[in-house]
């Protein structure tokens, strides 16, 4: 019995210690960010590997999700003779939920894991200590550019995901299933509000991007400097980001759309 309490205690202490280290780490990243103004090139390199290389995955996934939504939505709506509302269904579900959430999950798998593995390996092969020896701050040189690039990329990717999804829904709904094109767009425009829906979706994707970037760089920096440690940290990045994004999504949705 006492052993059980001891286990519980030690694991909670470990959890809080980790959260505390994560918080302190975030503060250090923030204090390193201003130095990037004089060296934007570092961020551009990271934007390329984090954002541009994720773009293909996001665009194709968005198109597919939109096409599936179009098919499924049509099959349900046609029973009620309401297939003209297909545009509205596709647009609202993508802009409010699927765009930010699915893009964040894909982003964690595509870019977050790569960031963790890269930083973790730098630590394991003592490149980070080497930089410190040369009086180069790895926070400014390695961590902060990656963090900022991920924070910038995520909202852009989520927006692309939603836009591609709506196009996919349009191709399937109007091109394949014969929904009227005018009704598709006008029903959508009638029901989707710029501030209420699109801006809130954008806020969601910014929050998710922040969390995904934080988890990815922290896990990499905090990884045990061994092969196994890096592999565990990479797994943890994907798992924790998925939990954090889905949990935050519920909270944000309740705050934004809960009391309409």
């Amino acid at each position, binding site marked *: 019995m006492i052993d059980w309490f001891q286990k519980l205690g030690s694991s909670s202490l470990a959890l809080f210690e980790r959260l505390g280290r994560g918080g302190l780490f975030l503060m250090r990243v923030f204090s390193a960010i201003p130095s990037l103004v004089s060296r934007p090139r570092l961020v551009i390199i990271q934007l390329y590997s984090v954002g541009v290389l994720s773009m293909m995955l996001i665009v194709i996934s968005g198109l597919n999700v939109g096409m599936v939504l179009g098919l499924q939505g049509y099959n349900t709506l046609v029973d009620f003779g309401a297939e003209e509302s297909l545009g509205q269904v596709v647009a609202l579900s993508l802009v409010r939920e699927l765009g930010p959430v699915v893009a964040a999950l894909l982003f964690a798998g595509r870019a977050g894991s790569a960031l963790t593995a890269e930083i973790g390996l730098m630590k394991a092969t003592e490149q980070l200590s080497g930089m410190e020896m040369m009086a180069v701050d790895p926070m400014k040189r390695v961590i902060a550019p990656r963090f900022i690039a991920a924070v910038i990329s995520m909202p*852009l990717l989520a927006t*692309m995901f939603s836009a591609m999804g709506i196009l996919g829904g349009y191709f399937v709904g109007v091109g394949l299933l014969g929904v009227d094109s005018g009704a598709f767009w006008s029903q959508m425009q*009638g029901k989707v509000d710029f501030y209420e*829906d*699109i801006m809130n979706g954008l806020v969601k994707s910014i929050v998710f991007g922040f969390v995904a970037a934080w988890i990815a760089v922290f896990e990499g920096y905090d990884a045990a400097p061994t092969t196994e440690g890096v592999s565990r940290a990479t797994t943890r990045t994907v798992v924790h980001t998925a939990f954090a994004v889905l949990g935050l999504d519920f909270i944000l949705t309740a705050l934004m759309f809960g009391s309409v």
Partner: protein
Amino acid sequence: MIQKRTQEIAVGVFVAVGLAALVMLAMKVSNLSSLSDQDGFEVIARFEDIGGLKERAPVTVAGVRIGRVKTVVYDDKSYEALVTLSIASKHNQLPEDTSASILTAGLLGEQYIALEPGGAETMLKPGGEIKLTESAFILERMVGRFLFNKAAEGTGESKAPEGAAP
């Protein structure tokens, strides 16, 4: 290692595509291009029963949307629903005796307010009130009334000969 220039071009394209997607969402998907709620003028209307009218429901004239329902509140004094309509300011040419009725899009669709302009010379002012209103069409009530009338007709017919005989 990729050329510095290609890399920068790729990042530029990435950011541009992201922003273009946002512009597409704003212009093509949302209502930002058609109507903004800010520049509208407000008129009020009182209804005995608004049925299922919600805030942000469309306000139409001749089937064309010219505004939205801004607020729906209950008025303690007149025991009626007080509806505030926000109408785009370019459509401020509505006569004073315009009538408002709550209609349903399709049989089971959402409810909206249809305005029918009257023939008065004076125009509705911002903050004015639409006096002629027609309550929502409530299907259950109609069905109930119809059945009641049918029943009344039935008894009326059976009674009619007796009443006519003496």
